[in-house]
């Protein structure tokens, strides 16, 4: 009787999440209708079309941008998370909220803020002009896209890393230091392996939304830094080729599943070494 409590929410999720995802999978193997929509016959054309050089390039560029954003977010986020664990404990919650707060504000506005900063007439170029330099076209470059992705998702890197750093026994680091291990060695042999699950979670939290993003490439990258999200959006809303758009999004999903599996097995291996 009480199990009935699951019925409404699960029905909701099946109808509005599972079925729609099923449709995307099915549409990827159908043909585009003449006026939008889909029709038979079942085909692999959409899959082979993704392998054309044009689309391969966009795909590679998307993985590169999302990967670069993930690495930079890690490089900034890990030391920051470490710094939070070293604060007095009553300050730690406040410090974390301050990290997450921007994430809860409008994502478009946070992206838009960078247009003001990076524009040719923007503040960064004003600063350069004072030093007698520039102007430099920061905006509408691949670097601007990577910066925007890093900025948008870096709070999601800090949280899980903080959580696993907090569980770490500080005596391990003290012991290593007393035994003469330098900072790099302590990082490589203690901090890194023992917080790897948190690092992997953080990396996925940055990489996954970065890969499918189409707003940041459009607003900060201009027309020449398309990512796979832009392609998917265009197939659905402009060229009305839903089957190809579905196939592209399946490619994103497949890529993500491969990465998750690869990282999970890497984490298992590292844990074995650690033990």
């Amino acid at each position, binding site marked *: 009787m009480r199990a009935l409590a699951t019925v409404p929410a699960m029905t909701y999720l099946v109808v509005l999440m599972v079925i729609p995802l099923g449709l995307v999978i099915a549409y990827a193997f159908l043909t585009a209708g003449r006026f939008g929509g889909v029709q038979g016959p079942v085909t692999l054309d959409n899959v082979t079309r993704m392998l054309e050089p044009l689309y391969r390039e966009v795909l590679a560029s998307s993985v590169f941008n999302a990967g670069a954003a993930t690495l930079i977010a890690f490089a900034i986020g890990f030391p920051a998370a470490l710094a939070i664990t070293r604060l007095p404990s009553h300050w730690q919650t406040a410090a974390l909220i301050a990290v997450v*707060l921007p994430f809860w504000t409008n994502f478009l506005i946070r992206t838009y803020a960078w247009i003001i900063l990076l524009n040719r007439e923007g503040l960064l170029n004003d600063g350069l002009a004072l030093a007698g330099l520039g102007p430099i076209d920061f905006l509408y470059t691949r670097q601007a896209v990577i910066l925007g992705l890093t900025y948008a998702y870096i709070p999601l890197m800090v949280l899980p890393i903080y959580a696993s750093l907090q569980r770490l026994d500080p005596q391990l680091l003290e012991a290593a230091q007393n035994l003469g291990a330098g900072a790099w060695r302590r990082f490589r042999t203690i901090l890194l392996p023992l917080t790897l699950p948190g690092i992997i979670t953080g990396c996925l939290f940055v990489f996954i939304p970065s890969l499918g993003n189409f707003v940041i490439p459009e607003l900060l990258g201009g027309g020449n830094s398309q990512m796979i*999200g832009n392609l998917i*959006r265009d197939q659905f809303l402009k060229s009305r080729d*839903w089957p190809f758009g579905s196939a592209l999004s399946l490619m994103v999903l497949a890529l993500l599943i491969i990465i998750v599996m690869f990282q999970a097995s890497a984490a298992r291996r590292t844990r074995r070494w650690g033990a």
Partner: protein
Amino acid sequence: MMTRTLRSAPLWLLYAFLYLPILVVIGMSFNANDSAYRWTGFSLQWYPALLGDAEIMGGLRTTLIVAVGTTVISVVLGTLLAMALERYLPSRALDAAAAAPAVMPDIMLAIGLLAFYTLVGIALSPVSVILAHSVFGIAFVAAVVRVRLAGMDPSLEEASRDLGASSVKTFWSVTLPGMRPAIIAGALLAFTLSLDEFTVAFFTASPAEPTLPIVIYSSVRFGVTPQINALATLLLLVSFIAVILAQRASRLGDSLRREGK
């Protein structure tokens, strides 16, 4: 003291990175000039100008309707789901299904829902956005409420039933009050999430009734305007307040729990 400052340097660097762009937007919203880049003097003119902008006010109206609708559906179904998963029917498969919307690339859900609506003939409107946003909202509310339920002592509910209260009475006078802080926190998060959500709304909203983020997107694509800076500042304020309220609601719960023990 010096070494402590040095040690927290990476954190200050992160804060500078996170807040500098936000502060610039807030600052520029008070710019007297209508150029979005050059500061010429202080003015409040862009705030009242917002009220006269039909597109922005229309977007605000749609967004509020969508956020309220999403919050209602998410709270009711999310709370039920949390109770079912935590108390009645623990299952790893259901756990995964309940968490899926939070980890899936949002563009997949967006195109899937567009395909689904088209297939079954649901017209795009604020309602279709509410249905879409609630997929995320339910997962969020369920996650927050579950944490709370896991910390609640089930013997209170057992005691209530042993003393002759019906299941309904036990729910209203024991379980629900216990969950209240988490429900409030979950509701605020679902509301904020819906308020700011762009990708799914972009695919599932009617072009005639865009949500505020869609209005912002269309206007930002064609350049920066001081009006958008003013709007952005107000939205930042609303999000900050909602998150802080949600935080206080859930912390209030923690302190109550400690007192109870």
